[in-house]
């Protein structure tokens, strides 16, 4: 595989509907992910649930990041540098599953998403490469 980091990273922009957690995203989302990680402690989960805005205010987040969290808009959180494994602490706090969170990002209803998964999942055909249209 290529050892040219520029070529390596450029490839990742060619996958439809996918944001790879590169350094650029990791840096942008640093505090968002650290905030999410803090919810691994039961005591922090309680404080967050009691007053989400106040708890978010303790972290150096952008307004866009805070709004994305408050709206539980996982696509927006990922745009802002969130990583799904960190964000998982948020939907776990809400008592939601990975299937709920993933489904919420697809634009499908939860029932349709669940049915698609039961039916064998989303086909890779046509969503492998933007450039090559395959």
């Amino acid at each position, binding site marked *: *595989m*290529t050892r040219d*980091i520029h070529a*390596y*990273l450029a*490839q*990742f922009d060619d*996958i*439809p*509907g*996918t*944001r*790879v*957690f*590169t*350094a650029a995203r*990791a840096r942008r989302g*640093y505090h968002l*992910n*650290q905030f*999410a*990680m803090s*919810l*691994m*402690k*039961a005591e922090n*989960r309680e404080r967050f649930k009691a007053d989400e805005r106040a708890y978010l205010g303790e972290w150096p987040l952008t307004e866009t990041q805070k709004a994305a969290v408050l709206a539980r808009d*996982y*696509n927006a959180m*990922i745009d802002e540098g969130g*990583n*799904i*494994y*960190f964000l*998982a*602490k*948020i939907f*776990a*706090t809400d*008592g939601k*599953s*990975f*299937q709920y969170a*993933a*489904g919420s*990002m*697809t*634009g499908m209803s939860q029932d349709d*998403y669940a049915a*698609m*998964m*039961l039916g*064998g*999942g*989303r*086909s*890779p055909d046509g*969503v*492998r*490469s933007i450039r090559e249209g395959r």
Partner: protein
Amino acid sequence: MARITAGIATSHVPAIGAAIDLGKTGEEYWKPLFAGYDWVKQYQAREKPDVVVLVYNDHASAFDMKIIPTFAIGCADEYAVADEGWGPRPVPPVKGHADLAWHIAQCCILDEFDLTIINEMAVDHGLTVPMSLMFGEPRAWPVKVVPIAVNVVTYPPPTGNRCWLLGEAIARAVESFPEDLNVQIWGTGGMSHQLQGPRAGLINKDWDRAFLDRLTGDPEALRHMPHIEYLREAGSEGIELVMWLIMRGALGPRARELHRHYHVPASNTAVGHLVLEPAGKEKP
């Protein structure tokens, strides 16, 4: 002399852990998934491994963004079960094999692998779900564990080739450990899954099955597969499959497939499971 007697691969989906912990394994949705692990439970009861070198990835549990080790090796006597946001899984604590772990750590560093040694950490579903799948719900786990945590979250993860080479180095290290131990190596994570964005839910059965085939039949090509192919074909979280190459590298050039299971879906994920032995290995 310690010896690696088997290599086992399995997905480590958190929902599988939840299904076990909530007593749902008999439900229609879960039954066929768990049935595929009956064989390995019997195999383990027969083989009685002493130690598992358990290759997995931490999912923002032990490591936050402050510190991102490419390869971390747990050298502790015991690992707590992580609270991933809904309380720790109700499974026994994981006992480490500190002697073997430190031995592998020392050997691999001398062998020019730049490992991070970890003496205290919690382990998440990436490690405990495979334990449950292999051993069920015992009061105490029947093996000790040497955790190898691989970064597959922040890019770039290690290359497939580097993973394979680490597997080879782990095998050399195990073989130079003086105590007589039956050691297995497990590679976990995968198969197809994407947990994010409009493409979430991607499952590529053909590609997954080819990956399972190639792991015994054509591992040399897999070893050089670029990361982008995992992402395109198996989804953004399908990259976890590079970890299977550490397991496979440790088995040597040729391996024999003893058992295979493939099931879709578990939550968002395709589940794959293989039991391999180094080819040429004689049964005791």
